[in-house]
Structure formats: C-alpha cells, structure tokens
C-alpha cells in the first residue's frame, strides 16, 4: 500500500491584502522520509510557502492536503496539522522566548496536553537528540548563535512532527556549526522524519538533499533529483543560482575526458576518486 504524501498542495495561490501575489498556483507533494532542499532568490516566496505548510497562512485559492485529506482550517484539524508539521524560523531570537532552554523545549509538548512526566521524558530525549542537554538551565539569550539554532530545532522536534521545515537553518553559521546542524538533521531523518529546508547554499543542497525544489517569483519552477535539477542551466540562470562546484568540475572533466558516462559524483569524495582514476 502506498502512503499518501504528508502534505500536498494543490493549485495554491496566496495574495497579501495589498494585492501582491507571493504564491502562484503551487502544486507540490511532500513525501515521507525525504530530505528536500528549497532554493530560490531572496523574495521568491520561500517563507510564505513555509507558512502555508502548517496552516499559519491560509491560501487565497487552492487547497492543502494533510495525509491525503483536505484541510478545512478548523481548530481541531489545525492542532493536528501544527503538531505534524514543525516550523523552525530563520531568526532563533524570535523563536526562543522562554526563560530557560528546558522551558522552551517543553513549551510545545505541554500545549499538546501531555502529563508532566511525559513532557519531561520527551524534552530529555529531544535534548539528547539535538545535543542541547548541556544547555538545559541556560536562558536562550546567553547562547551563541549556533546553540540557539539547535535549541530552536529542539523546540520543534519535541512536538514529534512528521515533517520538519527549516527556514535557512545554516545562515550566518560557521562551517563547524553548519556541520553540527546538518548532523542533527541527518539523525532526525534516520529516525524517519522528513526534512525540508531552504538555503542559498547550492553546494550544501546538492550534497545533502535527495530532492530539490526551486522557487522563482512565487512559482516552483523546478523539482526533482539534485543531479537533474542542477544540470538545467536555464532554470539556474532564471533564479540567479550558481551551479554546485562539484557539478561544474565534473562537467569540465567530462568535456576533457575520453571515456564518458561515468557515474555522476554526489560528493567531494566521489569526485576526487574520479579525478584520481583518470590518471
């Protein structure tokens, strides 16, 4: 039996009260156990799309399906949707408002009406999953930016969502913290969650994701496997994106090579062994 996608958008458009359209007729399926990267220039509509996924914004037209069932935006349904789709905002400062890290992570589970013991158990589990246990009693405002980002993710993970949506989780982080965040996301993915993140980093998207979405002016102009999407130069140009360097170097090598049709490299390592083999 095939599972329904966690979330499906059918012909969703969204218009702000002042008339500007930020989403134009978007249709999109988000399947279970995926790692999806959403790319697109500043102002392409990525954040607006995210706010639709857990029902914070209601589309002007079109409909949203959750587990195959259309959402009617009634209170009870919304609660289920928000629990299933966790949203991590870009700026952790606006997300962390409690007086300690523990309280902040406990905020969501408590709203689900769990008992004190259950909440405690979930929070402790989440803190160890997201490597935030050390920070338990600290107030969010004394954390470093990398720690804040992890606590913000923890607060969402604690609601045990099926889909975790992250708005530029790696922006402003140094490479070390980027790796830690990606490590945490990979662990969550291994536990069966779907991860959807937006980023400007094509190299990260190429190496990490197994599905790429590209947005431009409120539309999804490309969707598919990284190795397919990033070969389409017209799409990349239109959305002001660079080619991942692995793809570019690979193409250069291919051009200058005699034996074509090697397997496409998905990582630095694969590329380098390709270079070495050519000796």
């Amino acid at each position, binding site marked *: 039996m095939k599972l329904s996608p966690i979330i499906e958008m059918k012909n969703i458009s969204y218009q702000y009260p002042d008339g500007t359209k930020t989403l134009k007729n978007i249709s999109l399926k988000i399947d279970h156990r995926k790692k999806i990267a959403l790319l697109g220039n500043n102002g392409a509509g990525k954040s607006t799309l995210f706010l639709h996924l857990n029902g914070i914004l209601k589309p002007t037209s079109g409909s949203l399906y959750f587990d195959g069932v259309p959402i009617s935006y009634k209170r009870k349904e919304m609660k289920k949707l928000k629990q299933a789709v*966790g949203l991590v905002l870009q700026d952790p400062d606006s997300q962390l408002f409690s007086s*300690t890290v523990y309280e902040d992570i406990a905020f969501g589970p408590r709203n689900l009406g769990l008992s004190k013991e259950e909440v405690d158990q979930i929070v402790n589990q989440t803190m160890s999953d997201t490597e935030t246990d050390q920070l338990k009693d600290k107030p969010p405002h004394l954390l470093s930016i990398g720690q804040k980002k992890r606590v913000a993710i923890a607060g969402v993970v604690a609601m045990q969502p099926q889909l975790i949506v992250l708005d530029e989780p790696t922006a402003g982080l140094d490479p070390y913290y980027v790796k830690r965040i990606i490590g945490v996301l990979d662990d969550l993915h291994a536990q069966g969650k779907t991860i959807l993140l937006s980023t400007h980093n094509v190299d990260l998207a190429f190496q990490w994701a197994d599905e790429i979405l590209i947005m431009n002016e409120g539309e999804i102009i490309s969707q598919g496997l990284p190795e397919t999407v990033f070969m389409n130069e017209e799409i990349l140009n239109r959305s002001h994106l660079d080619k991942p360097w692995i793809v570019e170097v690979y193409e250069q090598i291919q051009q200058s090579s005699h034996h074509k049709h090697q397997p496409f490299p998905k990582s630095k390592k694969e590329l380098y062994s390709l270079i070495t083999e050519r000796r």
Partner: protein
Amino acid sequence: MLHIDRYTYENRFNDIHPLEKVIFSFGCLIISIMMKNIVVSLFVFIIMSSLTVFGAGVALRFYLKLLLLPLMFLLMSIGTMIISITPKELKTVDIMWSIDLFKWSVYISETSVAETTILIFIVSASISCMYFLILTTPFQGILWVLQKMKVPTIFLELVVFTYHFIFVLWKKTREIHIAQSARLGYQNYRLWLSSLAQLIVGIFIKSIRSAQELNIAIESRGGEESIPQVDGNYRYNRSSYIFIVSIFSMMLLIYCSS
C-alpha cells in the same frame, strides 16, 4: 548593563532553591527595616555582602559599583532631610549648625542627623539584601516564586514576554547605537536628540517585527491559548533553613542586647 542577569546564571548559588533565597533575603530585609537598629543593619550588610561576593562569587569591583548606583538618590534625599528651613521664630532647640538668611533660618538639627544616620544604615542593609537576591536568583526562580504566590497567570505571561523582548530589543539598541556612533551621531545636544529619536523609532519598528515573528513561533507550537506553568526542578535543602533561622535569631539577639 544587563550583567546582573548574567551573574544570576553564573554565580555559585544559582541552583539553591529560589524560595530559600527569597525567604532569607526578604526576611533579613523586612527585619532590618522594622528593627531600625544600626548594629543589626551593619550585621545584615556584612553578612549579605560577604555572601554575595565571597559566597556567590560576584566580582568585588562590580559589587562596589552596584552599591554606588543609588548614591545620588541617597545623597539628595538625605541632604534634603537633614537641612531644615523655617522662619526664624520657629527654630527648635537641638541645633547643631545654623545660618540666618533674612527672615529665614537654615539649620541642621540633632534629631534629623540621628534619624538620617539610622536611615543610611537601614538603606545599606536593605540594598545588600536586595542585591543578594537579584544577583543570585535566575529569572526562572523568581518566576517560580511568583507563581507559588498565586500571582495571576496573565501577569506572569506578560512578565515572561517582557523578559524575552528586553533582550531582543537590547541587542538591537546596542547595534543601532554602534552604527550611529560609527557615523558620528550623538556629537552635540541637537544631534543627540535626533540620533536618540531615530534610535528609539528604529527599536520600535524592530519591536513590531519581533512581535509578529514571535506570534508565528508560538502559533506553530500550538500555544496561542496560554503559556503553561513553569515547573522548575528545584530541591529543598534542610541546611539552608537551619542557616536562615540562625541568622534571624542572631539578628534578634543583637537587637535585644543593643
């Protein structure tokens, strides 16, 4: 400036039960205000200051600076209280110093000197009690105590939000202030006024955005109705109470013997 807050998380007493710290500091505070006794006040001041500096580990230099903070208020009010101005004919008897100006007499009486001396000691003791509390107790602990005192939930929620936004806006304020100074704002009174007004409006606009973002964050985590209660995992400690009771009895003993 918000390093008092930083100390509450980084001092050696931060995981002592907040209720114990509140009972101790408030107890000493109220008793010294009520007893109006110089020796008791001195005793409280010394105990509280040494607990704060040597016990909790607050830097002495910082603690001294904090003590100087209310000095201006103290000097102005004490000065006001000591010096009396009355029509010449109303002069009292216990005058230490006086000067006559036309029909008026400006003077310092012994009673007022005695009263203000006691007041200075009481105030010093009270301040040391308050500093002990605010330097060693994290906000979470204060919140816990307020909750136990049955302060209305909505009030506590507002307190939590205010605390959150204070740090968001503080950071923003600092950044805008740096940006303005880097471009030579605040150079004279007129520039100061206009730079400051722009700074305040800048924070205002940022404020509204952070409120909107926070609402999204809260809604996403299913919390639009109410912020649930805080439950800190604090442990009571019998020896704290023994310590508190013994300090209180010592105060009583000093009071009775002096």
